[in-house]
């Protein structure tokens, strides 16, 4: 039986650390909602508002996907924020404007829906900590709360049976 050389494990570990650093995916927050996309989209808008944010726009993302032969074009991006915060940060830090307002991409996967967003703490990293972390930490907490609520929402079938 072959034995693994201890040096090999050490080298692999170092390699993993080196390669993983620039490619780490901790910047994303993602959940699965057990609702079809139209219902999940309605729930998301409602949940964002309940969390104290304004839904600015809901944009179509995959223009022409049907024309490319795909059988689904269920993809939207929901933009939201608080006007005063977006105004303040966009004036003070123009480099953040491509990432503002906050957004959640929402797309269908079979009967469920996936929701993904950039973790707002990433924006704080972009600023190299020139701005106090407070606002970004709050955004992170609020977004996690929004997405947690979305993940916990029962699907239509469960809702129907639960009502009986």
């Amino acid at each position, binding site marked *: 039986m072959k034995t693994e050389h201890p040096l090999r494990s050490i080298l692999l570990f170092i*390699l993993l650390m080196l390669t993983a650093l620039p*490619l780490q995916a901790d910047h994303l*927050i993602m959940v699965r909602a057990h609702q079809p996309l139209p219902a999940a989209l309605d729930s998301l808008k409602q949940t964002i508002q309940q969390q104290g944010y*304004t839904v600015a726009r809901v944009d179509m993302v995959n223009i022409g996907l049907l024309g490319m032969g795909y059988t689904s074009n269920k993809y939207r991006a929901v933009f939201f924020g608080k006007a005063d915060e977006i105004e303040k940060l*966009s004036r003070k830090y123009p480099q953040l404007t491509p990432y503002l*307002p906050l957004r959640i991409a929402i797309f269908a996967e079979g009967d469920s829906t*996936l929701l993904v967003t*950039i973790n707002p703490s990433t924006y704080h990293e972009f600023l190299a900590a020139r701005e106090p972390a407070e606002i970004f930490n709050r955004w992170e907490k609020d977004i996690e709360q929004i997405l947690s609520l979305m993940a916990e929402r029962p699907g239509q079938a469960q809702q129907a049976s639960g009502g009986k």
Partner: protein
Amino acid sequence: MQINRNPLHLSILIFFLFVAPGGSANAATEESELFAINCAACHGDNGDGGIGIPLALPDFLASVTDDYLFKTIRHGRPGRIMPAFQHLDDEQTWAIVRHIRSWSSGKVKLSPEGAPGDPEKGREIFARYCARCHGPLGKGGAGTGINFTRLHDHPVVAPGLNNPGFLAAASDQIIRTTLLKGRRGTPMLPAAKMGLSSQDVDDVVSYIRSFEKELQRPTKTAMVPAKPTLIATSTDSFAETVENIRQAISEKRLRIIRQHYLDDGLVAQGEENKKQLVIHFGSIQQINTLLTIDPRMGLFLPNRLTVMEQDDGKVMVTAVNPLRFGALFNNANLEHTSRELYKIYSAILEEVSE
């Protein structure tokens, strides 16, 4: 990827871990809860796959050890979407392994250890039989698992073998077993059906293991991450800059999809800041290519440029830096398209700042 860290979830977990009386039902709940929080968004509630590969395939579970699953969760797959879940401790990671293992009643059946192989011969065999799905350098197939652009009847995207996460997790015996037995439910055929001998298999294992040496060489991916934002300053007025951008986009045969003020929808209609304008542009082909490689890319599609006049009258144009996408999404397959996109953004910004 960071999945929700709802304090309620954490409280439930802490309760099950430290307070609740022992019992298999509680343990199973804790295991499934951990899977739901950390894994289900990509792999599906029942492990039937999604953006992530399906885990509940009997052949997969019969050919990988618990140690493989543990290391895969711990180290992820750098550049292949699967993040490293280093915030989970050993106990939490083992709990997820047990949950994954609960989908199969069968035992792990590894093939016997092989003989030392010849990596050069393995390279030739790999090029002929494996590269079509796993890529000529074993980097894996492009795109993600099943999602709205890849439906359930599409084959699983071939995993990256030339990947430090895979190489750290998979023993030679696991690779050998997979080659010998194949994976039902995927395009991976047993070696014998492809006409390969046991020695051929050992040669391929040896070749795959040789990727480690290649990965140890310094590469461009270990560089400092690109700046998150591309910024240009225009010497023209706000209105002229907007017009110049629109013209530059059209000259590149790209479509202007929509434009609106940055605070559109956040403030009452008519009260928007008219000196902060967002222009969305792109091509259908480009958008769909990016969404097929990674459906999460919709966060930054269509392309967008923000034009703004600051209080001192200076006009600036900003855009996300596409060179950052690979790192943000842990997806090396985005790099080629991102570089193309970077050229487009840079060319437009250059024209504006001239």
